[in-house]
């Protein structure tokens, strides 16, 4: 049974709004001089420049991965590696230039800050243009600031954590990131502090042919908790854009971090992002990710469960349409006894889109009584799309519970028939089934973001459903 969804003119793609903005500086390519210029413009300590130059050398030495989607057409010399907007960092949206503020208004960022956030950061191309945190949280010792500023403001924390969770040698594109990193967020939640409202950072890549290399470092100290929401989007252009960000997370003893991402990059962008988290005793990391955009994504958040009773949970949704190759998944290292991993992954492929789920789970010999459950469901909306599941588990003791389940299929004609017999049109029935498929992921977000995710699903479903 084939279902067509008619063009829904009420749905506007707010993510595709193109803004004409006069940048202050725009650097192309990847040379020592470019990096020196970026570093100088940020007044960085000398060790940062040395680190960047070492990363540059590594980038040239390391090879592209010989697995995963083809990214051989990426020519870094054609990427604008640094684009400085014509705005300083502001603490009031009123001070943000109108053309930039309009973009974030349409994305709903200032509005959500008023209603449901404890703090917000907003990045436009290579620089943070807005950052704010509730005063009462500052008084309790919470730090939430531009990562560039944190390097000079909090040198001890930076020395302890920066590039330690994700080392510069990790892979070629993390070396590129460390050579060019700019913007991003630094968060420190002191011991025992539990934030009731989330913090949100939004990364907007506006300039055609540009790269974004923001660095996010979050430290949730012992007995603390944080919910962090990361949003990403870019308008569509013909030029290739690149995102090679890095997220380093540390979750202390008995601490809890929920890291949610709604990613809707434009379909001319390569998303080569790296995310890692180290979890101490009885700590918990929750990854919630909705991946809708980008031409190619390669993203496999890693959790290192270093402390006894540490937990990781993953709630993942990918939606690949025409021309998209979303290669996502997870990596988990069980490195202590009584650790737990739970993963619920869902993917939807349509119009020739490719969804690939990769999981890599390693259980060390000492990680006895590990409890691991991975579930992966794929929905194919047509026969020109593709859905692959590539899980790997490496288990080195027998005192564990490990299960992996995966399934792939289409929208059941019986379900369509049932819903139509209850008065729904064929397109309504199909859309309802897809929304129901994604619901476990959507409901993991705060309610406003669940609505946003459903809006994205409906945007993606315009055209053929199956």
């Amino acid at each position, binding site marked *: 049974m084939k279902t067509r969804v008619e063009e829904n003119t009420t749905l506007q793609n707010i993510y595709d709004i193109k803004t004409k903005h006069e940048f202050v500086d725009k650097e192309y390519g990847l040379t020592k001089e470019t990096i020196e210029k970026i570093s100088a413009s940020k007044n960085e300590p000398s060790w940062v420049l040395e680190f960047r130059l070492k990363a540059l050398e590594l980038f040239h030495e390391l090879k592209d*991965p*010989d*697995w*995963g989607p083809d990214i051989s057409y990426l020519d870094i010399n054609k990427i604008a590696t640094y684009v400085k907007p014509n705005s300083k960092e502001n603490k009031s949206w009123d001070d943000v230039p109108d053309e930039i503020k309009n973009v974030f208004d349409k994305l709903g960022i200032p509005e959500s800050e008023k209603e449901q956030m404890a703090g917000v950061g907003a990045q436009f191309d290579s620089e943070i243009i807005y950052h704010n945190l509730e005063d009462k949280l500052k008084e309790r010792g919470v730090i939430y600031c531009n990562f560039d500023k944190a390097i000079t403001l909090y040198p001890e924390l930076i020395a302890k954590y920066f590039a330690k969770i994700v080392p510069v040698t990790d892979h070629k594109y993390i070396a590129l990131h460390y050579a060019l990193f700019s913007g991003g967020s630094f968060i420190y939640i002191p011991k025992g502090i539990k934030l009731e409202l989330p913090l949100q950072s939004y990364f907007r890549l506006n300039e055609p042919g540009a790269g974004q290399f923001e660095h996010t470092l979050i430290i949730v100290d012992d007995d603390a908790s944080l919910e962090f929401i990361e949003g990403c989007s870019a308008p569509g252009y013909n030029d290739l854009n690149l995102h090679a960000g890095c997220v380093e997370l540390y979750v202390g003893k008995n601490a809890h971090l929920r890291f949610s991402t709604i990613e809707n990059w434009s379909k001319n962008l390569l998303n080569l992002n790296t995310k890692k988290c180290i979890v101490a005793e009885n700590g918990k990391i929750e990854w919630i990710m909705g991946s809708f955009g980008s031409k190619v994504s390669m993203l496999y958040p890693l959790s290192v469960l270093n402390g006894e009773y540490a937990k990781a949970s993953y709630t993942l949704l990918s939606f690949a349409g025409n021309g998209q190759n979303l290669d996502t998944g997870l990596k988990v290292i069980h490195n202590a006894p009584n650790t737990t991993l739970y993963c619920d992954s869902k993917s939807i492929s349509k119009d020739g889109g490719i969804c690939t789920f*990769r999981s*890599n789970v*390693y259980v060390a*010999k000492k990680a*006895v009584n590990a409890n691991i459950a991975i579930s992966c469901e*794929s929905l*194919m*909306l*047509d*026969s*020109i*799309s*593709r*859905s*692959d*599941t*590539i*899980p*790997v*588990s*490496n*288990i*080195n*003791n*027998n*005192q*564990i*519970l*490990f*299960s*992996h*389940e*995966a*399934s*792939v*299929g*289409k929208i059941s004609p019986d379900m369509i028939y049932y819903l139509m017999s209850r008065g729904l049109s064929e397109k309504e029935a199909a859309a309802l089934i897809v929304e129901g498929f994604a619901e476990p992921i959507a409901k993991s977000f705060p309610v406003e973001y669940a609505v946003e995710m459903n809006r994205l699903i409906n945007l993606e479903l315009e055209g053929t459903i*199956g």
Partner: protein
Amino acid sequence: MKQIINEIPIKTTNSFKVNGLEIEIPDNITTHFHGYEVNDDHNLILETTKTTIMNHDAVKLNIKITSNNESPIIFNYYFDQADNLIEEINIEVLNNVHANIIFNYAALSKEQHFHYLKQTIKLDNESSLNFSTINMLSSNATSIIKVDNEVLSNANLTYNLIDLGGSTKVSSSYGKTYDNAINNLNVIYLGTNEDLIDTNYYYINEETLANCAINVQGILLDHAKKTFRGTIEFVSGATSSVGNEIENCMMLSNDASSISVPLLLCNEEDVIGSHSASNGEINKDQLFYLMSKGLTKKEAINIIIMANINPILNNINNEKIVNDITHSIISVL
């Protein structure tokens, strides 16, 4: 000579070294074997010739099955002293023929036998074959089994691989399933001591209503290491086809290690595909239940293991061979 074998169809990260197996095939291995015994060959056309496999002299056996047989045709191979065997066996089951065949490889001595078996199996339209390959070589042997099969329209293949013997057990199977055909692979492996077990099973549903399944039941003891690779692929056009993959690794030792790579590749919407993998020690609740009924722990473990593997052993229609397999497994538990 080092070779990369058992490569998965789509590469993944290199960190776990699961994309393939690098194995050394000794240059000085020469086939030295006295031949097989077969219980009943009147329904077969047999042809034995020489061939070359990996630059080694090898024996080639072509088998054409021309009429039905109910009780299994059994080929027995007994490895003794300095025996090594590199062989190619090609089997074709003709249209509408229903056959049952067992290849049984056993050891008469504990030498370091080397056995490389390359099998191709073709089932013509409307045919069926229940085929078993049983490796019960000595614990010092090296066994490499490579099976390619094609199951044509409305045919039905059940392939049972019982991989018990040898300190190195490498197996692969590449299966293509066509219109309304059934292609089932059932595997039992046993790893003891420092055994290395490496597998790669890749089944493709090529046409509409194709139905394939991979069912692997494993037992690991001591310091045995196992890598399981299993792939089910649905190509575009394989509408209404079904593919299922199950791997269950029973780890009876805390020193054993288990790597699993169960792939599901899908290029067709109108399919039902699933895979599941479970690894770990014997379920404690099951053990407790059986022990509460008066069984010792060892007896309870034996029962649970046999319950997992018996559905596969039931496909082997020879009581003596099944008893030998059962004894071989129970004796090391």
